[in-house]
């Protein structure tokens, strides 16, 4: 589904990603871990199409297409979803209008008619259950005044509505208490299927107790320096990142 080949990314003169290789197939969950500043969020942004940096080398192939050629909106329509580390507050844009526009853009891309209002509201009600959102979103602006937990639930709620093929969850666990973490993780698990794939970016192993990954990768200084299965995450939890840093820095 996704093939990242020797991806190098620069922000101004600084190389942030120094040759990333990663393959994700349908049905898989990949966790990307790593210390602060290792390039995790830059990788997520590169996949979603935020263009505050230059891709200097390499390719991102998604279902055989070169992703870097596509606008962020076309990537989304093609089935890529980014769960934001810091969901943006947009005062004055109502949640309902926003979600309707998002769903109908996707439908239009597939040559489908806009969803009738009644069906849309029904779909909202149904998907709100995935992440246990009880509040009425109709009178609220996008993320405005949402608590940290609500913002993250809202991300997964949007994911549920848009049914992406490839979801990239950037630090979805940050700022969540244990109950909210469980709800968010359960939401992600409910949405798992053999047809879609998830990349979970996280600092901590804790989230991976709930969303069990098939593969764990450690990103450090712009490279994937170690890959393994879920046991790698446990090791990191016990020993921290220092042993990996030492290993890498010694080689260098």
């Amino acid at each position, binding site marked *: 589904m996704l093939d990242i080949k020797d991806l190098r990314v620069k922000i101004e003169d600084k190389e942030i990603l120094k040759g990333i290789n990663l393959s994700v197939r349908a049905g898989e969950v990949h966790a990307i871990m790593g210390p602060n500043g290792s390039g995790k969020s830059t990788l997520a942004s590169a996949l*979603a*199409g*935020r263009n505050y940096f230059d891709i200097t080398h390499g390719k991102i192939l998604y279902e055989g297409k070169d992703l870097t050629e596509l*606008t*962020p*909106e076309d*990537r*989304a*329509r093609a089935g890529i*979803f*980014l769960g*934001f580390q810091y*969901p*943006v507050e*947009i*005062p*004055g*844009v109502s949640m309902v*209008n*926003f979600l309707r*526009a*998002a769903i109908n*853009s*996707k439908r239009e*891309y597939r040559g489908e008619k806009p969803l009738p209002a009644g069906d849309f509201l029904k779909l909202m009600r149904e998907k709100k259950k995935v992440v246990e959102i009880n509040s009425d979103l109709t009178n609220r*602006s*996008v993320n405005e005044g949402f608590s940290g937990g609500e913002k993250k639930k809202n991300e997964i709620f*949007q994911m549920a509505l*848009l049914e992406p093929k490839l979801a990239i969850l950037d630090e979805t666990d940050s700022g969540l208490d244990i109950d909210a973490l469980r709800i968010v993780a359960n939401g992600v698990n409910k949405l798992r299927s053999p047809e879609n794939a998830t990349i979970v970016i996280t600092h901590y192993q804790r989230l991976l107790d709930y969303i069990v990954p098939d593969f764990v990768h450690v990103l450090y200084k712009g490279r994937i320096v170690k890959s393994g299965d879920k046991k790698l995450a446990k090791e990191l939890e016990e020993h921290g990142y220092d042993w990996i840093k030492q290993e890498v820095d010694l080689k260098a």
Partner: protein
Amino acid sequence: MKDTIETLTTTAKYLELFRTNREQIGDGDPDFVKDLREQGIRSFEKTGFPARKAELYKHTHLEPVFDGEFSFDFSPRKIAFDDNDLFLCDVPMLDAHVLTVLNGVFHHPGKSALHELDNGIIVGGLREAIRRYPDLVSAHLGKIAPLDKEAFVSLNTAFAQDGIFLYVPEGVQMDKPVQIIHLLLSDKNQMVHHRNLFVLEKNTTAQVIICDHTLSPHMFLTNSVSEVSVGEHADLDLLRLQNEHNNSCQVTNTWIRQERASHCQHGNITLHGSMVRNNLHVKMEGEGASSRELGLFLIDKLQHVDSYTVIEHASPNCTSDQHYKGVLDDASTGAFHGRIHVHPNAQKTEAFQANNNILLTDTARMNTKPQLEIYADDVKCSHGATVGQLDEDALFYLQSRGISRDESRLMLMDAFAQDVLSKIKQPSLRDRITDLVGKRLRGELSRCNNCAMHCDEE
């Protein structure tokens, strides 16, 4: 002959225009109006048009516009205007007293020029009101907007032919809004000076909507003055929607005087028009008065909109809350100069002002100048002004959900405008204006899309 005319300054041309047509301009006026005209022209002679370097007009130089070739009617002119070519305003009120002002003159075919409603409300043409209620009119006309401070008010006082008069007697709550539609329709380039006078006595409420439109593609130059008196405990909601075509220039002068514990909300929404200058002066004379000033303009191409506002706190315990916003596309330009003036005795004043602008291109320009003049010591005042672009983080967030960049921009602009629009009190009007603004942002609003005349040549 032509040579001598061309050597005259623009100011001199207008003085000459007045003097040679004095009889015709003041034909039928009672003495107090004749006096006002003379005072007006004398003040104008002293000030002349604001000079290019004049601080208050430095972003909008109007003299060259007034120097253009415009015809001017010294008395109401018959215009071939078929009422069957029904004009449907973009803001059709479900139920309102609709008054049409055609080229500055109250248009009332087959109907009386002034209506006296059952509850004592008087509404209709100012010219007729001057004739029938000289005492009522003379108590206010030329007294709220000072003749000697503002060249365009002076000029209007000298030349104005007509406009709308509204009188709400003590204790009366108007059941329906008054909608004034200023129409411009001519077979040549035309200048219009019109004058409105709204008087709300004690304990009254009224809602007035003013819509400015053009019905023919000629160049129009409008210099409009509205004088507004809001009595004790009265509540006025006044909204102006400017939607003239982009070959027209409009100067509006709105002077509002508020008495004790009165409330006034003034809104100004500008969608089209080539060059627009809005002067708003709110003076809270009575203790405990409150006011809200809303402004929103959405402009593109080479449009220019300049707002000059003075909010005067002349008594203690008054509050004012001003929010002006602008969205500028293409090579459009805008200016905002907002003065808040707190008199020495106006303790416990609360005055807030915000001016926020979005530039959509590198070629659009906005100048903003907040100005506080505070002479009392126990006051709460704040002001803030911003000129920026659309929030890239918000745009990316919307795009990342599959919404196109264009649509995302529209959503953010809509949201930006909502801040002001949400404060329009009457729900049906708010919805209608919100819809219009949405259309304007999407480029779907040809100004005349509801007009049967289709004179738009853009």
